[in-house]
């Protein structure tokens, strides 16, 4: 259970993400999707239990959770606009101990997102929305998480860029990173997800394989526009 200033945002939510999967949480605004990701990353307190690779996360401070292997691309991207693109990426390597491998990781991120390479010394606040989203994903890659949490990566992007981002999410997953994806764009999310959970006003009301839910009439009515 997650509460904000005493108001319950979630109750009785239980779900799991298997290694190598893409799992998506879909649901309307205010359903509690963001609260779940914030709880996992340790940004908000909660009752109940969250486990990662057998370790209970409750008493682990947020900045240590990153070191355990959980990266998050937060809602609204959370770019530090006063830092350059390169500085944003570098900041995400704060907790890494394998300093010798960091240079190679910059190259990999720049390969995935050539735009970021062109703009590496530019203040990131001057980037377009799509570029900022790429930077946010690039940052999560730089922290070398084994589990990547993505909060509404399609928000505010053009249909073309949404396609790009979802393709990249699949690529990241193929490279061995487990994905927990929170989306309002249920259509796109269900297409790439191995499994999905549907959240409504703080509780899970439905779950199943991604493709399966895509054909579910209740889902069609509520989230896919009939």
């Amino acid at each position: 259970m997650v509460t904000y200033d005493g108001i319950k945002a979630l109750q009785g939510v239980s779900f799991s993400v298997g290694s190598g999967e893409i799992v998506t949480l879909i649901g309307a605004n205010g359903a509690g999707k963001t609260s779940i990701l914030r709880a996992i990353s340790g940004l908000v307190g909660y009752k109940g239990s969250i486990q990662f690779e057998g370790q209970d996360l409750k008493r682990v401070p947020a900045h240590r959770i990153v070191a355990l292997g959980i990266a998050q691309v937060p809602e609204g991207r959370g770019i530090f606009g006063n830092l350059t693109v390169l500085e944003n990426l570098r900041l995400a390597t704060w907790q890494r101990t394998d300093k010798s491998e960091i240079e190679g990781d910059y190259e990999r991120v720049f390969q995935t997102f050539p735009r970021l390479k062109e703009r590496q010394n530019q203040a990131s606040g001057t980037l377009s929305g799509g570029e900022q989203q790429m930077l946010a994903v690039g940052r999560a890659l730089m922290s070398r998480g084994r589990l990547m949490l993505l909060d509404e990566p399609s928000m505010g992007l053009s249909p073309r860029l949404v396609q790009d981002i979802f393709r990249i999410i699949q690529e990241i997953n193929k490279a061995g990173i487990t994905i927990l994806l929170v989306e309002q764009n249920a259509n796109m999310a269900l297409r790439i997800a191995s499994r999905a959970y549907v959240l409504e006003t703080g509780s899970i009301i439905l779950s199943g394989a991604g493709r399966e839910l895509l054909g579910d009439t209740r889902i069609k009515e509520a989230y896919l526009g009939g």
Partner: protein
Amino acid sequence: MSEWIVYGLQQLLNALQLGSIYALIALGYTMVYGILTMINFAHGDVFMIGAFFCFLAAVYLGLPFAPALLLTVVGTALLGVAIERLAYKPLRNAPRVSAIITALGIGIFLENFTLALAPYPKHIPALLDSTNWDLGGVSLSSLQLIIICLSLGLMFLLDYIVHRTPVGMAMRAISWDKTFVPLMGVPVDLVISVTFAIGAGLAGAAGTMYGLAYPVIDPYMGIMVGWKAFISAVVGGIGNIRGAMIGAFILGGVEIMVAAALPSTYRDFVAFALLLVLLIVRPYGILGSPRIQKV
């Protein structure tokens, strides 16, 4: 050299000395504001404690200048961290006004704590042999030279830390928005502590140098100097490090000019008038920019 040029250079030198001391203190105000959007009104009193640490180091430990300065900087840095941990951290999510009132309270506490231990003004012994040079009519003392060079050195060091090191990068990220900084694996509390340590340490260095330049110290010496440094930070654009330095040298220059041209009692009046005029003309200061309101 013409008499006027000599006079002008002399005043410029005096302005540099005063400005450097204001700048060292102003940096602490602006750094704390930058990352916590809070005015640390106890900061002027940390400067005062710095002067007293220097007094203790010189008189009771018999230390020469360099170790006394080092001890003072370390002592005030620890004091700054302790103040943040004990008084401000519990209020981090409280309304800003609670933190500001607490800061005022801490300042009054520091003044009266010092007053209880040192009811009479103290005299800091001369830790440096003062040599006076005559540069074509302009007189420069070794103390002045050390104050100016050391302050400029510390300012460059700080600028380097903030713009070129990981911890400085984390400080700037926190100043943008600290919500998601932990997602980068950055321990926010530690970075805030480092910020307070640096800000208070610089104030301690300023206290030492001020105490050597004006050797009679008392528990209330931090109030007016603290206000002047605060004005410097606001004039430069609070939250902006380079702005704080520029603001401090402007204020130092204005004060020296006023003292040279008008009765010296006009000095503080002019300093505060400068603040008021600037707030009307450029509400965000010289290098400041309005905070972007997120919708």
